[in-house]
């Protein structure tokens, strides 16, 4: 019974990672950039959620409050994502990889510490007031799962399906796949690469923002540094599942969550972080393209 409960815990945690990983993998798949700032977009989304719930506190409908939180978070995150892309990443599109990576680290540092100095965000931790209807648990058999955990799992599944459909079935999605495959060829075929990259960042950031709201509902103490570790772990999840593959990110997130939880529950809670990075290293050695990724041959 304890094992089943731990499994439930793991899947819940994993669905949070999945949600973050989906945004990560989308951006990396197209722009080939580890957006270190993705975890901080999560943080921005969480703060949007905090304020949305604060303003909606009197309202009668909790569903509306949550919807408002999502909308606010996704809109602002998308805006921030596009601004970052246009100012910091676009100038480096043709520069060596190292430069883009270092810039991404710089953006992350600016967002985290900027949030600390902005008075309506940092530096103190803030408690998020979730609508009453979303507090509490479902008890099924001897297992407990909280309402927010169910919402998180459902949202990540829905988003995964919607996003995969978008990428596979729409024209913009096809353009995104083309840019991911070969940026120069796509440009020659008449695809506006700038537009596609901006759209990608906007969607990826919006997903990060939505993940932030759900993260804040799951763990209602938010602070400017909250995005660092989840961002890293979600990236590991994305790599595990195959970077660029959205279903892969979903699976990767769940695997990360379950592995971490089972380690804490049955082996040793002290080594949980080390296990997370250990998974990354093992997968990169054994199957670098990840579970569902395609192995790319490097062209000269």
């Amino acid at each position: 019974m304890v094992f089943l409960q731990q499994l439930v815990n793991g899947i819940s945690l994993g669905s949070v990672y999945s949600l973050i990983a989906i945004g990560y993998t989308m951006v990396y798949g197209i722009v080939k950039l580890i957006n270190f700032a993705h975890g901080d977009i999560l943080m921005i989304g969480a703060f949007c959620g905090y304020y949305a719930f604060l303003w909606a506190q009197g309202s009668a409908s909790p569903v509306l409050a949550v919807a408002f939180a999502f909308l606010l978070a996704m809109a602002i995150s998308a805006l921030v994502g596009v601004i970052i892309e246009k100012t910091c990443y676009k100038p480096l599109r043709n520069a060596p990889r190292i430069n883009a990576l270092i810039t991404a680290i710089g953006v992350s540092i600016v967002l985290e510490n900027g949030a600390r100095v902005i008075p309506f965000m940092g530096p103190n931790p803030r408690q998020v007031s979730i609508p009453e209807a979303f507090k509490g648990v479902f008890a099924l058999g001897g297992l407990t799962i909280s309402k927010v955990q169910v919402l998180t799992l459902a949202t990540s599944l829905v988003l995964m399906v919607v996003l995969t459909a978008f990428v596979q079935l729409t024209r913009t999605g096809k353009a995104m796949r083309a840019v991911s495959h070969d940026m120069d060829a796509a440009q020659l075929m008449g695809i506006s690469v700038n537009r596609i990259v901006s759209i990608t960042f906007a969607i990826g950031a919006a997903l990060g923002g939505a993940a932030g709201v759900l993260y804040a509902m799951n763990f209602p103490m938010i602070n400017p540094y909250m995005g660092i570790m989840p961002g890293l772990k979600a990236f590991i999840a994305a790599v595990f599942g195959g970077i660029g593959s959205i279903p892969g990110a979903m699976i990767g997130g769940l695997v990360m969550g379950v592995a971490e939880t089972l380690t804490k529950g049955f082996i040793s809670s002290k080594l949980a972080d080390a296990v997370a990075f250990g998974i990354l290293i093992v997968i990169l050695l054994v199957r670098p393209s990840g579970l569902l990724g395609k192995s790319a041959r490097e062209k000269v």
Partner: protein
Amino acid sequence: MKKKGVDFLLLLGSGLLVYCLIASLAWVGVIDEYYMQLLSVAGVYIIVALSLNLITGFTGQLALGHAGFMSIGAYTAAIFVMRASLPLLPSVLLGGLVSAVFGFAIGFPTLRLRGDYLAITTLGFGEIIRVVLNNLEGLTGGSAGLQGIPSFSDTGNYTLDAIIKFSWIFAFFVATVATISNLIRSSPGRVIVSVREDEIASTSMGNDVTRYKMIAFTVSAFFAGIGGGLFSALIGYLNPSDFNFLYSVNFVVIAVLGGLGSLTGTVLGGLVFTFAQEWLRVLGDFRLVVFGLLLILLMIFWQSGIMGNKELSITGLVRRIFRKGGRAQ
């Protein structure tokens, strides 16, 4: 060839001159103990940044976990000094050696990867090292840290102690620059640089690219460990949580600021970084925002850093100063 030899001697000579200048200024009290401390800290940072520049600037592999190697060297040296009563010099060297062993072990799986994945994997190893050090309480003291590490000397005269401290670090700094510089200029060094320029072309020329990446990585880990050993004696206290990802980023910033691919650049970058950190402290929390902006602006507008990939050459400098205007370059 002869010009290079002259260049090297001149650089060595000027280094000695700088040392004597600083030491005497400290002795008469113009440079006080606090600034000697900062110079010593800068020296340690420069040594680690030089080791990072070797793997990132010259070999082209971005490493984001060098705080891990530094911490291995630091703890090794401290433990040998405090538990095995070994003198400082062999302890620091052992620190470098143990770090190099870990560098070899980590490099083995990691260096097969490219670019982003390599960077993230080094980050991962840095974190793993931190977690392990925290959990080996019996050896490292765990989260309480290791305190009371003896300093370089204890003569009772604070000024003399400060000068001795600086001398130790300066000596290791010279050794580090000399070794890395010679490595770069040797034939293995040529292969290492060719990996940065175009790894695939280098492989198709018949070079065992992985072998040379391993050499660079292991040497890099060695010097990072040396820096760590010196750090432990300099500060006297170690805590695993201080050697985190952001600490590794500090060294990346120094190398980038000075110019990836320039050793003198790293020296200048280290000095600027250490002193700027002190001065900008008045900004409070804004300081870190400035730090991040600096990284971004450097990468977008000044990718080559202070020295680009050139080295300081005394003869070149003299020639530049005494060239009359007119003849455009």
